[in-house]
């Protein structure tokens, strides 16, 4: 008896939950006044059209967004063209899509919307009585057009609506251009970093290698191969992120070359948990820190200097630190260079900036230093980050 009561209660609970979930999923938009509903519907459709346009004026992107844009206008057919061909078509008359770019010609040339007369519209479909072609711009340059066909005679209402949708679309295309610019500037930043490591280091390495050519040709050969590997990694052109293991490999080659120069004066220690070797980190985010550590660890003294690199697992994060026991620094100087002032630590600011970009503002570099007390630079890398998985 009790058993059945409980079972029925459980089933009833499950059904109630299911209904609630279904209502929640379907019904959230049902609330509100008519005008709120209309606003919601319009903005929602616009928001669906937007992501596909963020890739720029491409065939794939326009094909995905054109049906939503047509939904906004409520016209029987809508086309998107670039300057030379029709990219996407939604609605009646798909077979006649090449007409759209012809009808858009005037709009593309003049940069302002034009009316397509009944005769031209009939070429596409017997049903159509008129059409509007409105230009699409990016950075104030006409790059394409939106062509709408209607089975009613052309009127100012349709004209205004098409113009507004074209403006909205142009806005998205501007954002696409912004995205591209931003990506280009991030790439440029990495390029700058590559340019930074090269001059001193290449010169020093080559002279160090040269000094071994006669006395120890085998070592010279090994060092040259390390040098080759190191440059191939540093100058590679793809990917903003890399596995920690690969970056460590490059750091190893870098340190081998530095040791050729400094000999026993440069001591190194590496401590790494094997679990974090596959963590993806921004490309070249450890090497500049090691370069700093070598420079500041040995600079201005004849004694030995030790550079320690550790990478440890801390639950969902990996903590990487680079430490030297050199002259240290005034924390104020570091603070200033991290905030972007030009100085001796450009590499530091660059790494900090890229870490914040990839993982958020609470994942910047942490620098512990004081005059004559060495320097320790630590970063916390999440094992999973959306920015990295998105690449």
């Amino acid at each position, binding site marked *: 008896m009790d058993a059945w009561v409980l079972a029925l209660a459980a089933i009833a609970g499950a059904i109630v939950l*299911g209904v609630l979930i279904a209502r929640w999923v379907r019904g959230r938009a049902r609330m509100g006044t008519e005008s709120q509903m209309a606003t919601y519907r319009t903005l929602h459709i616009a928001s669906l059209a937007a992501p596909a346009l963020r890739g720029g004026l491409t065939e794939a992107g326009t094909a995905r967004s054109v049906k939503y844009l047509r939904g906004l206008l409520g016209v029987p057919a809508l086309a998107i063209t670039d300057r030379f061909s029709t990219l996407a078509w939604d609605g009646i008359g798909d077979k006649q899509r090449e007409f759209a770019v012809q009808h858009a010609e005037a709009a593309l040339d003049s940069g302002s919307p034009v009316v397509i007369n009944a005769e031209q519209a009939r070429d596409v479909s017997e049903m159509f009585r008129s059409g509007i072609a409105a230009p699409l711009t990016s950075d104030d340059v006409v790059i394409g057009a939106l062509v709408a066909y209607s089975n009613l005679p052309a009127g100012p209402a349709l004209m205004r609506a098409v113009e507004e949708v074209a403006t909205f679309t142009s806005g998205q295309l501007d954002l696409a251009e912004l995205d591209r610019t931003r990506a280009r500037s991030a790439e440029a930043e990495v390029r700058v970093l590559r340019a930074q490591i090269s001059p001193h280091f290449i010169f020093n390495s080559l002279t160090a290698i040269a000094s071994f050519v006669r006395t120890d040709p085998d070592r010279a050969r090994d060092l040259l191969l390390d040098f080759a590997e190191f440059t191939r990694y540093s100058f590679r052109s793809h990917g903003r992120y890399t596995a920690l293991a690969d970056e460590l490999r490059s750091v190893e080659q870098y340190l081998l070359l530095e040791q050729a120069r400094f000999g026993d004066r440069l001591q*190194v220690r590496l401590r790494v948990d094997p679990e974090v070797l596959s963590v993806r980190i921004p490309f070249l985010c450890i090497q500049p820190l090691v370069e700093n550590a070598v420079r500041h660890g040995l600079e201005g003294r004849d004694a030995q200097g030790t550079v320690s690199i550790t990478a440890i697992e801390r639950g969902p994060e990996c903590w990487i630190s680079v430490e030297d026991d050199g002259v240290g620094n005034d924390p104020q100087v570091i603070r200033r260079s991290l905030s972007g002032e030009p100085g001796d630590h450009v590499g530091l600011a660059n790494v900090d900036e890229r870490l914040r970009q990839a993982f958020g503002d609470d994942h910047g570099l942490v620098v512990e230093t004081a005059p004559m007390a060495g320097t320790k630079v630590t970063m916390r890398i999440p094992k999973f980050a959306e920015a990295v998985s998105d690449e």
Partner: protein
Amino acid sequence: MNPTLAAAGMALTVLVTIGLAAYSSRLARTTGDFYVASRSVPAWWNASAISGEYLSAASFLGVAGLIMAGGADAVWFPVGYAVGYVLLLALVAAPLRRSGAYTLPDFCEARLRSSKVRLIASALVVLIGWLYVLPQLQGAGLALQILLDTPTWVGGLLVSITVLVVIVGGGMRSVTLVQGFQYWLKVVAIMVPVLFLLAAWRADASPSALTDAPPVFDDRTTVRIENPITVNVSEQLTLEAEGTVDGATVAGSLTWQPGQHTVADGTTLVFPAGATVPHLSSVPQLTGAGWGQPLQSGEEHTLYRTFALMFALFLGTMGLPHVLVRFYTNPDGRAARRTALVVIGLVGLFYLAPSVYGMLGRLYAPELLLTGRTDAVVLLLPQAAVGGLAGQWLTALVAAGAAAAFLATATGLTVTVAGVLSQDVVSKRVRDPIVSFRIAAAAAVLVPLLLGLVAESLPLARAVSLAFAVAAATFSPLLLLGIWWPKLTDAGAAAGLLLGGVMATAAIAISTLVPDLAGWPGALLSQPAAWAMPAALATMVGVSLRTAHRITPGVDRIMIRLHTPEAVAVQRTWTARGLR
């Protein structure tokens, strides 16, 4: 039994664990060693670590106990625990690794780009983790009670403290080495005694466990009753008792008629040689032959229960949060797949042993059927069947293995639960990442410890199968659809996770609180995976189809990333350049 030796075995495991954890990260003092230090963990060792974390107290102690009591039906437990990895290997391992996700909530974010689904998944990870840690602590309590005669809460408390010390002390940095070591310790600890047990059994003229009679006491046997019990007696039986039996105080000889009898705690029963073993009311009374056959347990709807159990174990494995995080150590999807393949072999090797303990337990430790504490068979059998000094050393060895079992699983689960708690809950309020992780770790241990004090103890392997059922009803449909069906939407995933989670948890709660439900309600509620998983799957599909406009933007890119083998050189840099 020699408690000192057994305690030493357990203590040694704990010390070695802490020691290895503290010194196991790789150290290189010259650039020449860098290469070795930055080489990724080989697949077989990673597989050892996964197996080490996976083989819990339920596997080490519980499976043998269930087989001893339930016979052929219970063999599905070890089979299911191992088969889960076949599905994991075929359907989940490589794509999950390629997604870059560390935890299951990460996967939700990577696949569905939704922070709400992420939160639901986090809550479920914590729930499954707690459900899974609970039997580990109870298993520890049982082991210590049997070996050292401590109260049951002591074991759980000691394990909790050890786990906390290891994690909060920052010692558990390099889990792979520790867990890998614990796998091999467990294999040795369960396999070496098997060899001795089989030798002793041969020397005893190989008595069959599959006779037509119920188990009998071979010798005059004294049993001390620790908890009040109700037993079923199948034929008239004369015994000696001291204490309270059937509500009356007795001291001396006593005759039991067939039927049910109650025995109060603190009572001592002495059975003559050749007496048929009375069974605890919840343990099925089986003859040897019946024990060897499937579907004989006498429970209602045994066929359904068996299939539902298979459903839970086969599909639940892929949703176990502490197992999945270990796959992150693999450098790529290919290595993840190879690791999963080796895990099947390693786990399969281990599960050869429990059936032997189960069978020999019926011959040499039948009093466990009376007390119902069959979970203890692995710990008691070496002494009962081998005996002598060898028996004591073997007991110390299984004690060490049992300690490894509950430590490995409890630590792994706590790290995972603490990671999720600190990332999604605590760090929102506590800025310092170290403090935040410590608070989360304490919560991850304390909740199951307190639950263990109030919750009734189920057989270990069955308790763990409940965690499997929740995983099967929630994460398994999410992973299957998320990886193989591009049209899954965030709304669909959220609805399915909530529905599956609520249904499975409610079923478990009801069937534990009201243990004697009969008929279909009893069967359905005690094994919810078989209906909750299809319901969650259908909900995910249905809601996703209704909310097609919410399909993840860029899902094709995500799918390509998940499914493209590493050997294929695709352009993996999806920057603006790739889209132009």
